[in-house]
């Protein structure tokens, strides 16, 4: 469960010009929720994602993840949180170019000390989940964009995190492939019961989630649930 209280992020670019990127954010996301985060470029949604993803720390305020005070953590503890609790999916995939799909999926487990055999077993299962079992030994440059993103999704699930953070995962893909990737997120949400936070520009994709949070100028301007059970059924078919 994500609990954010009075979260602020400022950049000091010399007094008196403090740059307020995030202002007084209060938010709670329950386990298993599928949330879309929308907002214009420069609205602060990426900064917010970085803080939720334990890549960045807030200037003030609290961020509790599964009752752990992430805002008080040291660099090493943040690394631990990233490795164990959070799975990242990036717009530009960020697969390791020299490693094949299997090794890419194994990577996060390397940093949490999972044994070699277990790494391989879990990576295979996850690649199967995203339908990439026949591309296990391919290098990223031998894969299409959609395939790369599927490997990236498998990788984000490697350490069985509680949250998957996806920063415009379909941004670099055409609409059709984007839909396919989105379907995988829905499947992961359904089967793995993960909390998924999806940053997107596409309202269409946002409406496939359960809740849409809109950020503008560093503040949450709207936070609405989506009633779309029919729509998800549609895309699945």
């Amino acid at each position, binding site marked *: 469960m994500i609990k954010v209280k009075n979260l602020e992020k400022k950049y000091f670019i010399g007094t008196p010009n403090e740059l307020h990127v995030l202002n007084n954010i209060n938010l709670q996301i329950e386990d298993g929720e599928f949330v879309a985060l929308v907002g214009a470029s420069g609205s602060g949604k990426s900064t917010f994602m*970085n803080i939720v*993803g334990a*890549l*960045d720390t807030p200037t003030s305020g609290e961020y509790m993840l599964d009752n752990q005070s992430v805002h008080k953590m040291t*660099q*090493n503890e943040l*690394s*631990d949180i*990233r*490795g*164990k609790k959070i799975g*990242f999916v*990036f717009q530009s995939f*960020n697969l*390791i*170019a*020299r*490693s094949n799909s299997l090794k890419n999926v194994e*990577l*996060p487990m*390397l*940093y*949490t*000390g999972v*044994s*070699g055999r277990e790494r391989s077993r879990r990576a295979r299962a996850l690649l199967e989940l995203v339908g990439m079992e026949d591309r296990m030994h391919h290098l990223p440059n031998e894969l299409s964009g959609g395939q790369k993103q599927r490997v990236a999704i498998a*990788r984000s699930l490697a*350490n069985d995190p509680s949250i998957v953070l996806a920063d415009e995962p379909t941004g670099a893909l055409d609409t059709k492939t984007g839909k396919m990737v989105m379907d995988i997120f829905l499947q992961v949400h359904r089967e793995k019961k993960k909390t998924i936070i999806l940053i997107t520009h596409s309202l269409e994709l946002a409406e496939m989630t359960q809740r849409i949070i809109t950020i503008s100028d560093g503040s949450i301007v709207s936070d609405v649930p989506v009633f779309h059970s029919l729509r998800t059924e549609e895309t699945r078919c």
Partner: protein
Amino acid sequence: MFYMENIRLAFESLRANKMRALLTMLGIIIGIASVIGIISVGNSLSLSITSEMKNIGTNNILLRVREKSIDNSSFRGPVGNGRDPMSMLSGKVSAEDKDLMTLDMLSTFTELYKSQVDSIGISESDGSGQVKAGRLYANVSISGVNPGYVRVNNLAMISGRFINDRDMSGRKKVCIVSDRLVKNIFKANINPVGQEVRLYKSGAIQTYSIAGVYKHTDSPMFMSASTTSEKDTQTAFYIPITVEKLDKTIKNFSTVTVMSNTGIDTGKLTKDIERFFEKYYKSNPKWEVSAINMSSQIEIASKMLSTVSTAIAVIAAISLLVGGIGVMNIMLVSVTERTREIGTRKALGAKNFHIRMQFISEAMIISLIGGVIGLFTGLLLGVTGSSLLGTAASFSLPTIFLTIAFSMAIGIFFGYYPANKAAKLDPIDALRYE
């Protein structure tokens, strides 16, 4: 497990940039190869010099009559009087007979230091000649020696005996010849001992009877320098020194070798000898006897050689430094190139430690591979160099291990800064890097 994975990653990234990795390694290869090559050539050189000098004998003390230096405080080199070392080596002392050491002096000395002295060797070179038997011949260098010479010079007798006191006092025309001479002149089934040979020397012919045969050993150092065939090689032809002195105006000796008993402090004995001869030479205005300790000579020679080879190796090590800087340079490039990858790894849970280890491993693998290739290249250089110098190649296992450890250390040392730079990257900045 994590370390194994790092090694695998390192190889993966080297494979991705083969040419670059090879060029980077080249610096290390050249550095290590030259250091190893120089050290092994230096080693084998000093080994052969030491063994050569050991043949002369570590217990030996060399006595020479030399000119008193006018200024006593002037530099005295290890060779002797610090003036012209060549004149000392060739033993050309133009002193008169009265200035030289007499048999009397030597026997008094032996009597006095009986417990410490094993034997005294005297030899006077009498030029070279040819021993002929029919159409067969052998080249020889003639030396007049005393009975103690055999022990002092560690000659190995194969058959017969060496020159003895009776030969000396009776001025008998006997000789001790080398096995090589025997091989050149006699048929295999003839026992050379007791045979007579004719010695041709500057037009004169003398007949000697062979009393014994010694085993000739080539000195490996100087053999390569001589161009004569094995058949024509000069071997020593020993005759009693009393016989050699018969037709000479100078009857006394300018050089004498004293062999001390084992376990004797040769340094102290050397001083005692000088003090002993001082008595005789106190009133001599021009000449004195100097004593040189062979073991200290060996030490000085091998120390000098190892100093020289270490100095050259240090110079060669500069190329290692350059190689190390090359590794550092390429690692910095690699870190910059892989900024996004580093960001990704950090986002996926890699700690600074993991990133640092990954890059240090890579630098270490580069320099380790370079080091191993360089090691073998260097050994090859050492073998080639040693054989060119005519010495046996010598390698020390510690040097090899040290090299491998050292090349790993280079990797760690020069890899640390780039690796640390990578480890300290901010994950957000790194992920945003284009």
